[in-house]
């Protein structure tokens, strides 16, 4: 994400058209300070994940997040351990740093599952309509009647507790949202002239969907993906918290919360405050990015939040009044 945006400021080279589209989106995106803040936070978290092996390198084959020091258990934050140590004497900051990569991976895997299946199912249902669409919508209704977290818990229980089953389970739970989004989009483009033109030119259904319709559908999917990534990380943390995603000693943030919970009533606040803060931070950042992308990618999808929208309306209104007054003066002059 931040790589791409940095590229946008690099001088344009081979594909001027693509660059300009990207630049346009970036120009609108960077106008929102909250969206930029979200991007900044995510960049920091990615950086933290990448530097985890250097912050806490492994010692004697023991991974850096599992270096136990039984003489230093449950230390409160100090200059030596800025986030303190846990019940096995492990440095909480090192574990959080290593956990960043896990959370990012969970988010990416989940939205990959959700988007891949969601786009496939949604575009087939939307494009062919009729019987297929009907069946599809009824199945979606069934999935939506089960609260997502319960569905995920049931799927994990049927598989095996662990991080991979959690990712699969949350991914399956995410499919209906993407499928519905894509379906709605495909429905609006299906009847348009450029699709008819492609069909007249002899394009196959597959080509029409993939080359002509889907590229137009991507804006809401991208927005949904960034919000969905936040939801996925939250759901996975929740599942780990109740003990389904835990593979000790992996420092998944939700699992850290669950481990620290026992010590909370004894006053060891640092074991639950910091991992939770990180979860909240990453979700906050992804939601900001989602909001920013929505405004930048498609002004029609704009949330009621941005001041720019209001200002643009004011400017438009002012321009209209000006044009009208100019028009009237012109006609008056003409008459005169």
């Amino acid at each position, binding site marked *: 994400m931040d790589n791409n945006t940095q590229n946008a400021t690099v001088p344009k080279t081979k594909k001027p058209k693509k660059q300009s589209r990207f630049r346009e989106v970036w120009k609108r995106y960077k106008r929102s300070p909250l969206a930029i803040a979200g991007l900044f936070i995510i960049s920091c978290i990615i950086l933290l994940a990448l530097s985890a092996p250097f912050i806490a390198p492994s010692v004697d084959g023991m991974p850096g997040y599992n270096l136990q020091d039984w003489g230093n258990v449950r230390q409160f934050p100090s200059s030596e351990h800025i986030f303190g140590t846990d019940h096995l004497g492990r440095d909480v900051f090192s574990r959080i740093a290593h956990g960043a990569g896990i959370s990012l991976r969970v988010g990416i895997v989940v939205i990959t599952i959700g988007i891949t299946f969601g786009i496939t199912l949604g575009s087939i249902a939307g494009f062919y309509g009729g019987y297929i669409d009907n069946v599809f919508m009824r199945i979606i209704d069934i999935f939506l009647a089960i609260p997502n977290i*319960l569905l995920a818990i049931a799927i994990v229980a049927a598989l*095996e507790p662990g991080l991979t089953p959690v990712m699969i389970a949350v991914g399956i739970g995410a499919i209906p949202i993407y499928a519905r989004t894509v379906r709605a989009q495909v429905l609006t483009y299906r009847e348009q002239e450029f699709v008819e033109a492609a069909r007249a030119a002899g394009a196959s259904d597959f080509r029409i969907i993939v080359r002509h319709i889907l590229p137009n559908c991507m804006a809401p999917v991208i927005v949904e993906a960034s919000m969905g990534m936040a939801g996925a990380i939250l759901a996975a943390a929740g599942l780990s918290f109740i003990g389904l995603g835990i593979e000790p000693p992996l420092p998944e943030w939700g699992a850290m919360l669950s481990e620290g*919970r026992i010590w909370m009533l004894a006053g060891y*606040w640092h074991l639950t*405050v910091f991992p939770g803060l990180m979860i909240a931070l990453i979700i906050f950042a992804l939601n900001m990015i989602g909001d920013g992308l929505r405004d930048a990618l498609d002004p029609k999808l704009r*949330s009621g939040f941005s001041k720019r929208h209001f200002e643009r309306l004011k400017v438009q209104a002012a321009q209209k009044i000006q044009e009208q007054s100019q028009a009237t003066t012109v006609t008056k002059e003409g008459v005169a």
Partner: protein
Amino acid sequence: MHKYILKRLVMMIPVLLGVSFIMFTLSYITPGDPAQIILGEGATQAMIDQVRLDLGLDDPFLVRFVSYVAGVAQLDFGMSWATQRPVSEEIFARFPHTMRLAGMGIALALSVGIPLGILSAIKQYSIFDMGANFISLLGVSIPNFWLGMMLILFFTVNLGWLPATGFATPIQYIMPTIAIASASAAVIMRMTRSSMLECIRQDYVRTARAKGLSERTVIFRHALKNALIPVTTTAGLSFGFLLGGAVLTETIFAIPGLGMFMVSALFTRDWPTAIGGVLLIALSFSFVNLMVDILYAFLDPRIRSQYQ
């Protein structure tokens, strides 16, 4: 209208059938022998075979599914594999706790979210509006289980004001309700605000102002009534979210509700209990959504006229 309600009630049947099919399939593909789970360690092969025969575990998948559904239709969810007691007894005993938690959660979310949403829409771009927006973004981002833990840390561990567990007395309601409602309050506030902003710009609001009505009448009688319609949908969906979120909140506050019960059932692979619980939650969620749709008709004469 009656016809519509009846039709919607009938349409709930295939959805619930689908839910039980999904859950039943999951239980079917789970590794492990249910008879072994029921009998525990040290069961002889003969005992296991007997239990398999009694429960019809050797029957084909579809036969088992049909007989399960036939049971559910008579409110018989089978026997729990863990406790050997009827599932319906167990889940109906715990369900009221979950419903009360979710109900109080949605009540709090609505009573915080709607007024804040209205205020920030009326005072758009004021300091208050920006502050409320920021807080709502925080509300969406903070995991409710972590919020619950932070509340315990602050109000129980540090201040010693509130009890950390239980859900029986009003003082025990406070923290779980706040924890479960925060995200929904934020979502409802965002929805109220944007739908209110849209309504305020409508022609009929300008007309109402132009004919000299007081600002209060304009906002509450003309704008708010219309603005609340999409909020109802959000509230219905939030209720489902709360029923699911109850799993985590109940775990944190040790509330003996359905959510926590189902999680422990799934841990021990006690599938009849888990399926029964999910079905009950899916049923109540579908029911709430139906009530929301009916409420729509009362709020919006345009929709009401369609049903007649």
